[in-house]
């Protein structure tokens, strides 16, 4: 069965600083990987996804993520954080070849200081 680990429960960065949110997955083959963002009191919005091909994927709001097979990681990055990026970020893995089903990590709460 697949699983996702987000080691950082809470991260605080200053506005304008760079950001990296960690995500490690466990799956027997190449998975589908996703990052979603949840603003307070809101639903989940897809930031980006990796299915195959280029291991560096670009998403919305200036986010990018890099799939590293050797490290079983899919870390999310942003070069310069804005105060509006404060939210909960979820990494998720989807299994290949089965009905679509996402397994989520426990989330990382991002706080942005001015």
């Amino acid at each position, binding site marked *: 069965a697949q699983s996702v680990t987000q080691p950082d429960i809470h991260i605080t960065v200053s506005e304008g600083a760079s950001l990296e949110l960690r995500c490690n997955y466990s799956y027997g083959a190449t998975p*589908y990987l*996703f990052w*979603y963002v*949840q603003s307070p009191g*809101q*639903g*989940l*919005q*897809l930031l980006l*996804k990796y*299915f195959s091909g280029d291991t560096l994927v670009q998403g919305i709001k200036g986010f990018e993520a890099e799939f590293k097979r050797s490290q079983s990681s899919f870390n999310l990055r942003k070069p310069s954080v804005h105060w509006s990026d404060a939210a*909960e970020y*979820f990494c998720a893995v*989807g*299994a*290949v*070849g*089965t*009905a*679509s*089903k*996402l*397994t*989520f990590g*426990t*989330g990382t709460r991002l706080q942005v200081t001015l």
Partner: protein
Amino acid sequence: DTAVSQTPKYLVTQMGNDKSIKCEQNLGHDTMYWYKQDSKKFLKIMFSYNNKELIINETVPNRFSPKSPDKAHLNLHINSLELGDSAVYFCASSPREAGNTIYFGEGSWLTVV
């Protein structure tokens, strides 16, 4: 128009009551889901339906009964509500093929008192 819409957004009810949450998607997707997010923000799939057929049922108490009248709707009915059912319930949908992006609704905040 909202792609995946669910109602109500907020629901406060007493223990023992029966309640329903409705979900509709206008994306033309074949597959719909219910996910539960607990108080620690952990998201876990509950059910998945593909064109009205149940395909995933993740060890959810049988007090929870999904119903899909057509492929654009997936409602969640909960009997005999318990305090532990308090959570945010997300409806979602996706195209049929595995690995496609799952689109989430805005959530229904259920509080059982």
